[in-house]
């Protein structure tokens, strides 16, 4: 497993983030996980502006888990902006949301999301999902550097 790949979670829901972290630990995935709480923070993080100006501490993530419904700038806007930015568009984005709305699904892929996953209900399915996630994104595919 490529443990150097950093995972960036953009989700306003701290409990969901906690569950994701725990599910990753359950699968012995030790990659560094960073979290931002909304789209604005996400853009600051990726561009190393504002609170995230320290490039050493906040390097570009290998993969982004993006929630759609967030305050300030939401996931849809952030997705559009990242995929429209020549420096950022190569980072894979996994939309990770509670929305099972077809409109959100289609829109996400149209904006260039790399995957669209509905948040699972139980913790065991979350563990299962994180296993699949790491199998694919951290072990199978080669990510851009």
């Amino acid at each position, binding site marked *: 497993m490529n443990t150097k790949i950093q995972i960036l979670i953009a989700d306003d829901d701290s*409990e969901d983030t906690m*569950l994701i972290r*725990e599910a990753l630990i359950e699968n012995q995935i030790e990659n560094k996980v960073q979290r931002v709480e909304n789209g604005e923070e996400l853009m600051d993080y990726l561009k190393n502006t504002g609170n995230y100006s320290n490039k050493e501490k906040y390097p570009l993530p290998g993969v982004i888990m993006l929630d759609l419904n967030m305050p300030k700038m939401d996931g849809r806007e952030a997705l559009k902006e990242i995929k429209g930015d020549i420096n950022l568009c190569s980072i894979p984005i996994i939309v990770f949301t509670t*929305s099972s709305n077809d409109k959100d699904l289609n829109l996400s892929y149209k904006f260039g999301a790399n995957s669209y996953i509905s948040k699972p*209900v139980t*913790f*065991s399915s979350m563990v299962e999902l994180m296993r699949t996630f790491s199998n694919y994104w951290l072990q199978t595919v080669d990510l851009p550097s």
Partner: protein
Amino acid sequence: MGSINSKSRIIFIFALLLAAFIFIIDISTDYHIVEGNCYPPILLFTILTNKKKYTIILAFICIIFTVFEFAYTGDQLYTDETGIRVISIFAMSFITYIIIRYRNAELILSKQKESLVKLNSKLKESNTELENFAFISSHDLQEPLRKIQAFGDRLNSSDGNNISEKGQDYLGRMLNAASRMQILINDLLYFSRQTNAITNYSNVDLNIIVNEVIADLEVRIENTNAKIIVEELPSIEAGPIQMRQLLQNLISNSIKFAKNDESPVIKIYSKIVPNKINPEKQMVELYIEDNGIGFDEKFNDRIYNIFQKLEGNKYRGSGIGLSICKKIVERHNGTIYAKSIKNKGTTFMVTLPIKQDNSNE
């Protein structure tokens, strides 16, 4: 409205000029051919205008003309001329009265129409609000519920062994209730999406749909030993996904509410009947008849209510199936009706137009 007002004004002015023209002719010649009897027909013109004041003004002027003419030509009095003038004044008053009555009735009608239109738009508004409310609230309700389930699950799997047996039972019941609520919310979401969904009408062969539904329900049909008899069905203009959902709900209901000691026999057949309001349009009456447990017909209105379960929790499901059926049928400008005898069976009759009215879209 502006063009109607200006048109009325033109008609009024025209009628007024005509009356004035006749008046001038009458008093400037010695023949007195007019004798007031030309005014009533001119007054009738004002029915083409939109205000009763035009009628009243013109009637007033015409009566003055008639009286003035009489006074002006008074020295050459003829008795029959007096009679005609009196009759025309009387006729003009009568016409004015009729037109005022007509205008008042018209005013009441237009007011009623206006309030109906207002009421209708208000209803539409509150309906959309309600639909949005159902969608948004069920979506937001899901969020905390998911947490209850996830952390309950987490507690169960990580610390389950440290909890007493009683505690584990409580936890199990909590998780069970949470998952039931999840089903309810999912169904509510599905239901509210049915109202939002736009139906794309196409030509749907109901035979194909029924066969697909039967194929989907194969396992349950085998397990319950159900017999499904399908007669030749017509093709109708409808939403294929919705038709499938409708028939799936009705057929699976018939399987579900079978008697314990008798395997279900379900008959599906149809009749083509003329539309009651518009006989030129044909409707199809689709019957789904079973030999199940039936229900008391006094609950006929209640069975379509959302989450209504006549049999309580004896049967699985959230009680939303028939609500969805009703919604689908109504969206297709049809009706759904059930006849049932307790312990004998139920027949659902779905009436749908064969061709959809495009104006209803």
